[in-house]
């Protein structure tokens, strides 16, 4: 089969899974008395229909890309990092410390420093479970779950006792100085004379896209990436090939933690412009679904991020405009979507293959000759 053909089959499979999940979601909406077609229209309009909506969708996608990449990288080494939520939270601490205490620096130094700090704190929080997995064989799923709770405790403590804005009654830091925040896309484009709607989408989007490209290059074009994949495929074979699986696991967890730590650059430095309680808001968990839906494809990861971002953003208009739809219904639709697109694509693979089969039979001899 040619790459184009196999790619088109993949697209057809995902498309039919999407259609099926929206059909099931539509059924749910019909049961509660909402017009499914109208709901779908509002959802799409809410996500992509006007410039501000697109900005918000891109903002959500930015966080999901970082979180998805983190899970994806770890999975390639055969480890399941479900501690993204805690690592992102700690990344926020790293970013905030630089933004609060070094805001005298010029932005050209300050922003990269804060980004590095966010990545470093995220990596540090991931390194401990990684090291324990590598050297003590403690299962990383257990330790990362525990580290999510510990991160929550640590951050609540710090925000309530040390980082609290002076005189403030709520557990958050003082706002960052303007030069300590990620420039918004609308501000950047305004510099070159393009006016777009205000939205939280910021420079982090570019960072996320660069991160996707770098991660794929790393994984498929470098020796370290090759080692990671060998360890993920077969740790025993890796050892015979002279690769130390432990070192690879620690290294991969560092990269994974650094990537999800960058969620904080988008959220804390780009949008909230201060450190607040529970800012990751589940992005670490969405990352799991994004990574698993991405498969082997970088474009797949970006598209999966966009899909969840569109759902997060589009549902806002949906909830405001259709009173019978509440946030629970939105969660239900999300679950159905993940089930069909993430876990059930094979349900559609056979029918798609059968539909495309006659042409393949004709095409095959032609290709052979």
């Amino acid at each position, binding site marked *: 089969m040619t790459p184009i053909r196999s790619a088109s089959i993949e697209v057809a499979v995902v498309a039919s899974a999407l259609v099926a999940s929206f059909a099931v979601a539509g059924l749910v909406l019909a049961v509660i008395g909402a017009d499914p077609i109208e709901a779908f229209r509002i959802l799409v309009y809410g996500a992509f229909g006007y410039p501000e909506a697109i900005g918000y969708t891109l903002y959500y996608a930015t966080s999901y890309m970082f979180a998805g990449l983190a899970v994806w990288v770890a999975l390639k080494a055969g480890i399941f990092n479900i501690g993204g939520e805690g690592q992102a939270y700690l990344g926020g601490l790293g970013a905030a410390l630089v933004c609060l205490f070094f805001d005298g620096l010029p932005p050209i130094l300050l922003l990269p420093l804060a980004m590095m700090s966010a990545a470093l704190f995220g990596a540090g929080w991931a390194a401990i479970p990684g090291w324990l997995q590598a050297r003590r064989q403690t299962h990383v799923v257990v330790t990362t779950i525990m580290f999510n709770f510990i991160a929550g405790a640590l951050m*609540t403590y710090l925000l309530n006792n040390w980082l609290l804005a002076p005189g403030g009654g709520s557990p958050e830091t003082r706002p960052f100085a303007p030069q300590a925040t990620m420039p918004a896309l609308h501000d950047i484009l305004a510099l070159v004379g393009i006016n777009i709607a205000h939205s939280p989408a910021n420079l982090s989007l570019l960072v996320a896209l660069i991160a996707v490209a770098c991660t794929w290059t790393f994984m498929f074009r470098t020796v370290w990436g090759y080692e990671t994949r060998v360890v993920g495929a077969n740790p025993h074979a890796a050892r015979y090939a002279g690769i130390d699986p432990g070192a690879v696991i620690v290294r991969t967890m560092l990269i994974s933690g650094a990537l999800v730590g960058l969620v904080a650059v988008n959220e804390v430095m780009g949008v909230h412009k201060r450190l607040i309680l529970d800012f990751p808001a589940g992005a670490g968990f969405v990352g799991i679904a994004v990574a698993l839906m991405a498969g082997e494809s970088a474009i797949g990861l970006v598209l999966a991020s966009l899909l969840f971002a569109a759902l997060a953003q589009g549902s806002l208009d949906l909830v*405001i405009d259709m009173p019978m739809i509440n*946030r629970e219904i939105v969660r239900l639709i999300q679950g159905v979507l993940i089930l069909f697109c993430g876990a059930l694509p094979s349900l559609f693979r056979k029918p798609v293959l059968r539909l495309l089969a006659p042409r393949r039979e004709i095409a095959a001899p032609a290709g052979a000759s």
Partner: protein
Amino acid sequence: MRRLLSSVLMLVVLALAPAATAADFIPAIVFDMGGKFDKSFNQMAYEGAEAWRKENGITYREFEVTSPVQREQALRQLARRGAAVVVAIGFSQGPAVATVAKEFPAIKFTVIDAIVDAPNVQSVVMREHEGSFLVGMLAAMASKTGRVGFVGGMDIPLIRKFAAGYRQGALYANPKIEVLENMTGTTPEAWNDPTRGAELAKAQFGRGVDVIYAAAGGTGLGVYQAAKDAGKLAIGVDSNQNYVQPGTMLTSMVKRIDKVVAEAFSSARNGTWQPGTRDLGLAADAVGWALDEYNRPLITPAMEAAVQQATGDIVSGRITVSETCGNSACTH
């Protein structure tokens, strides 16, 4: 048929919505992360809005925030749809209200539990510590063991206000009282974990506590159930929860957010809405304690008299209740 009718009605409403003018008065409310059924302040606000809707026959728009960034966005979308007044519930919405109020100077905003200084924002803060002081007194007077307990949702300034008031009140009524404190957790689940609440209550009962005040949203339900199962007393919070476990609910510390929401809607409608800060406590009857047929048998005339005396003293300023337990405010 009813479904068809309601969807037709919906379409009519939708068609009208963008064209909303001053003539269609549509208030709006944004609940914070807990959602409108959080058994806590969001739910009180929801009940206030619902009561107002039934009384005036005017529907309102609502939104339940699910991520921090949605706060600003929801406020903006509602303002853009021409909401006459947007009520934002919860301290976390303060910064978002500040930002959006600046973008929509013609729209009125009321924020509860936070202070925002802007010409079109009304900030309402409530003195939970004053109400908690009263229920602390009742707890100390009802306790036979000399030990009372507190179960908070999360160790954050808002909950510390409840704890501080409670501790001061208990000590005021009985200087020898011992107050045991537990916080449920540090993640959002801490507000929805009745099983944990029940265990924390049982742990406190095991140490001789016989009255517990819970300020922990849905987690509190577990505390009240554990008190009922053990034959001890519990104190509800925010709304009047005396009915939840009749006979073992000593009282509830009520925080009348429902009244504040209804007032914001009504005052915006009849033109008496004023920007600025409203600091509401016992004097404004915005916080207090609940006495009804469910807990009448538990409150002795002496207890009632003492609390009424203290209410008067707090209102007149003879007793000052501190918001925090720093610098020895909570020892007598």
